[in-house]
């Protein structure tokens, strides 16, 4: 008898917090709002730790059915939650990083209006995200999936006074819905073929199939449709366009939702569905190609961005591409490993960027920063840790996870590997560019003297109503005991999460040190049972339906085909790429800062294309949005509805009018007499019928 862990409580706890702050928060003090939000989010984290502590004694996967949700004929879906190694890792990441970001937000949002609203949304996000990762069937997962989209919509549009924020929220939701369309169709295919959406039932039904190597079968179709959903949520080509715009949201939101947790849901979903993907090799290849392309493509855009958050946004898209690449070469645990380290260092990068923005009074343009190293040392050092980590330099976390992905990618195809290494170089370059532009050289902004100038309409200037007291308009002491009169380090409540994440950005990768470097790759071994249990037989002849693959035939966690020495050479190359990026950034932004402009000038066309993000937004608008609105308005509404159907009706009514005086009377507006006649007629008819009825009885 396995213990009842009450898994459902984990998502419900933050929901209670969201409800309390949502309904009553307006009357609470800020301290009370923060206490509620942190209390319930912290309780979920504590519960996750408690579960982790007794995890080894559980029979896995551990499934708990709360109650039935819906039922139609033979088809039913439960509110059921499941725990295995994969969801435990996700659970700890989401509650842990989520809690840290909640703590940070207490300081960061202190002077913003709508404090209760912010924390209510943030807790609501935790509810949906935890539902997503703990669900034990696809429909409940879809609840979380759409729900995090809602939370994202609300939080991107948090500063709704700004039209750009409102538009960005809407764009995120709609683009995600395009992905959800694919997700839904995949669910219908599962219902059609397996009669259930329960993970266990679906996977058990899938396991007997051998990989669809010839042609596109329904498993490939399901996998590709799930991939469409994942591309929406995880901002991959072609649906990545919403994520850069999502930076309109407050920075802690960018850290939590648009870097550390929600956007990785696609990776989680694909990994969760690995049983299906493994049997759909061509779909898996599409995953790898999309991931590789996205990683490279987004990194190139990241090079030319000047908004500190936009750089990080494209960087996130690019790093998610790595995770997709990993999934695409069936190295799921490597993907999840990178998901975890990325949550640490990218969450940190955003929080640190928030601390920078906070310090310089809402400025987000790196061209107006510089020289901040001495003024905000804690922010600088923690951000440096994160930058080294994302650049894949040892012994920081990103090194191990990225190296694992590149190594596994190489085993699938050297092309993935090559693009991955080039991307690693680009990553290192644009990240150190960010670090150097922000913290080194001379300060180029003007927040030193007068506080609150904000060209970007970034963080301040959403003053106004709904209690939106503007930071710019509030030069009064800041709640944490220091003035706003210049560049200043953030309060401790923001710095502590930075430091913790900085430590994790360093040591977080040590759980997955590969054998070639003398480690035991414990992370891979821990996740092994999830991914190993169902790997299909490599040789299709061996996998007759009804026969499960023998456990020793594994791809995950197996010994590499080539020896350790080769692996070490490849590790050396990727570290070299990272160092090269660092060097180039140093050359261009510290050694000869006049060079970047000259280079940009000499490559005008290319630079312009990159700086304008290849005009993809414009292309989509021109291809899809404008034609759709034009067709709907001009052809459908004016043309068919009014021009054809109604015109025909009115035409025939006009014809009738000429024939009949009665109709003319009605049309001419003498409605009261008309109504009167109807009423009289109806009354007479009723009277007659009642009388007839009485007479017959």
């Amino acid at each position, binding site marked *: 008898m396995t213990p009842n862990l009450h898994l459902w409580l984990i998502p419900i706890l933050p929901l209670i917090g969201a409800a309390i702050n949502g309904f009553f928060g307006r009357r609470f003090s800020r301290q009370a709002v923060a206490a509620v939000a942190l209390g319930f989010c912290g309780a979920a984290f504590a519960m996750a730790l408690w579960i982790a502590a007794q995890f080894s004694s559980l029979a896995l996967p551990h499934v708990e059915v709360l109650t039935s949700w819906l039922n139609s004929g033979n088809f039913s879906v439960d509110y059921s939650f499941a725990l295995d190694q994969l969801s435990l890792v996700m659970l700890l990441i989401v509650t842990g990083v989520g809690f840290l970001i909640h703590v940070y937000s207490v300081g960061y949002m202190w002077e913003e209006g709508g404090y209760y609203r912010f924390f209510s949304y943030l807790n609501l996000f935790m509810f949906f995200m935890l539902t997503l990762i703990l669900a034990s069937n696809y429909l409940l997962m879809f609840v979380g999936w759409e729900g995090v989209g809602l939370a994202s919509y609300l939080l991107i549009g948090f500063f*709704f*006074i700004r039209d750009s924020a409102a538009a960005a929220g809407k764009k995120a939701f709609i683009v995600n819905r395009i992905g959800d369309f694919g997700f839904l169709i995949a669910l219908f295919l599962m219902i059609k073929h397996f009669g259930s959406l329960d993970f266990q039932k679906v996977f058990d039904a899938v396991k007997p199939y051998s990989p669809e190597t010839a042609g596109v079968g329904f498993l490939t179709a399901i996998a590709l449709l799930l991939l469409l959903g994942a591309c929406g949520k995880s901002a991959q080509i072609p649906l990545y366009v919403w994520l850069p715009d999502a930076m309109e949201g407050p920075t802690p939101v960018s850290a939590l939702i648009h870097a550390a947790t929600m956007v990785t849901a696609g990776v989680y979903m694909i990994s969760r569905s690995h049983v299906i993907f493994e049997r759909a090799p061509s779909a898996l290849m599409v995953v790898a190609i999309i991931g590789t392309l996205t990683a490279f493509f987004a990194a190139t855009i990241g090079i030319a961005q000047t908004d500190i958050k936009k750089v990080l946004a494209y960087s996130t898209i690019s790093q998610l591409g790595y995770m997709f690449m990993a999934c695409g070469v069936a190295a799921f645990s490597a993907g999840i490993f990178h998901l975890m380290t990325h949550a640490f260092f990218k969450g940190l990068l955003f929080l640190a960027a928030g601390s920078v923005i906070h310090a310089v009074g809402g400025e987000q343009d790196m061209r107006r920063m510089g020289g901040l190293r001495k003024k905000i040392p804690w922010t600088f050092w923690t951000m440096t840790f994160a930058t080294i980590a994302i650049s894949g330099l040892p012994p920081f976390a990103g090194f191990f996870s990225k190296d694992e992905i590149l190594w596994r990618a190489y085993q699938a195809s050297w092309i993935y590997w090559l693009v991955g290494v080039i991307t690693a170089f680009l990553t290192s370059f644009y990240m150190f560019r960010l670090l150097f532009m922000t913290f080194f050289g001379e300060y180029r902004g003007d927040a030193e003297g007068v506080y609150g100038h904000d060209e970007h309409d970034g963080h301040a200037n959403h003053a106004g109503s709904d209690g939106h007291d503007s930071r710019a308009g509030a030069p009064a002491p800041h709640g944490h005991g220091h003035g706003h009169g210049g560049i200043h380090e953030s309060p401790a409540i923001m710095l502590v999460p930075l430091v913790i994440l900085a430590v994790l950005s360093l040591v977080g990768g040590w759980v997955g040190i590969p054998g070639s470097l003398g480690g035991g790759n414990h992370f891979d071994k821990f996740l092994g049972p999830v991914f190993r249990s169902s790997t299909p037989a490599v040789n299709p002849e061996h996998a007759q339906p009804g026969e499960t693959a023998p456990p020793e035939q594994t791809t995950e966690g197996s010994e590499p085909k080539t020896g350790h020495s080769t692996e070490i050479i490849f590790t050396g190359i990727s570290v070299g790429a990272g160092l090269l990026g660092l060097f180039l950034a140093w050359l261009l932004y510290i050694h000869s800062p006049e060079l970047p402009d000259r280079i940009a000038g000499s490559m005008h066309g290319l630079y312009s294309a990159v700086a304008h993000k290849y005009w993809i937004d414009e292309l989509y608008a021109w291809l899809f949005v404008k034609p759709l609105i034009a067709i709907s308005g001009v052809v459908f509404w004016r043309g068919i509805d009014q021009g054809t159907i109604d015109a025909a009706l009115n035409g025939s009514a006009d014809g009738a009018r000429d024939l009949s005086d009665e109709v003319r009377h009605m049309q001419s507006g003498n*409605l009261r007499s008309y*109504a009167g006649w109807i009423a009289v007629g109806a009354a007479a008819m009723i009277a007659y*019928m009642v009388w007839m009825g009485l007479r017959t009885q």
Partner: protein
Amino acid sequence: MNWLDKNILTLITFAPAVGAVLLLFFPRRHRDIRVFALVISLLTFVLSLHLPAHFNRGLPGFQFDRDLPWISSPNIHYHMGIDGISMWLIVLTTFLAPLCVLISWKSIDDRVKEFFILLLILETSLIGVFVSLDLFLFYFFWEATLIPMALLIGIYGHGRKVYAAVKFFLYTMIASVFMLASILWLYAKTGSFDFVTLQNAIHSGSIPEFSGTVPLLLFLGFFIAFAVKVPLFPFHTWLPDAHVEAPTAGSVLLAGVLLKMGTYGMLRFNLGLFPEQSRVNASWIVVLALIGIVYGALVAMVQPNMKKLIAYSSISHLGFVVLGIFSFTQAGLNGAMFIMLAHGISTGGLFMLAGILYERRHTYEISDFGGLATPMPTYSTFFLFMVLASLGLPLLNGFVGEFLVLSGAFQAKMWWGVVAATGVIWSACYLLWMYQRVIFGKVKHAENNLLPDLLLRERIALWPTAIMALAMGVAPLLWLNTIDPAVHNVLAPFTQLASRMVGQ
């Protein structure tokens, strides 16, 4: 069966009408009239709760059955009864009626008494449509809904209200004539208006001359009347006009209940009496439904008027219902039924919200608003909630029905499900775009700065819709448990067909 069970349907049906008659005589002050109307409608709602409370989901066929011979020639019976389908439509009607009274509290200040009398008569006739098992009785109530509704639009509406009222009246009445013809043909051949008798006669093949093109014509006679009411593309153009000019309560009942008379009719009569014809004609009907889903949504997207936008979105939503019905799958019909209820709640809520703005600004033009989150935060929250319910966010009411319909359609024919599923994208587009333009941004018109947020009375009207939207999304089984067996009965003649289609 005790006395109450025997007469409960009669009580529920005529309670509002009795209230209307009483209203004719005694209260004089406007306030008393409103309170009285509210009490009557609440009483009816409480009475109607007797049905789900005492409904036995294990029994096949109709319950709370009451069959009295009424007129011997022609052979008309006072035959009422409900199953798991009609029961919830009745409760939906009685649920929305008190909210309609509340939302009309201040907005109607001229001819107040007549307004509430019309509203109560409308309620009686709507309930009558759903309880009638005698085709004559059904037709009587069916036509009876037209009069109060047309008068509500024509007298209490705004703008081109007379044009809209007449268009509504003529359009749907002309279509109903075809149904009357079908009913009379059936009576002429069988001597009965009784639904159950006719159903058995048709199924056993005992009706003379029921062959050749006759069944098709009969089917079409019913279908045209229902299709116009739904409204199915291309019979939909009366709806936007009727909604835009109608008073809020009229819109709520029009979208919330009146349209469902059409889909209910399809479910009960087209499928119930003519399964073979339903099957034969399903392919083109579904195509019209699919066009309605996509076309309604796209046209909704470009509407400059909030109410027209919601009206076109109803065309899209009702397209889902028709699709579900003519998928002949358990999931499709369950979903269709669930959407009927869910749409009644969330679109009812949206129309109330639009009406609240109209009371303040006397306009529905989206461009006259913008930035309302600032002066009206609570309003904005309710509005968002209803928008989310309407666009089918999981855990709210819209999702369950949409999911089931799509899944059923997909099982019937894959491409039906795929085309219809694009609806999840369109609905997000038109609803969130509208929401953004009305609620977000800076206040663009100075007069909107001073708009008062929701009044207590308005909150009382909106809260029940919000609670129901959540309850239906979180615990749909409370409804599906009784809908599912009823749908199973409807589908019984199709079972063979349905299993064949699933196997495709």
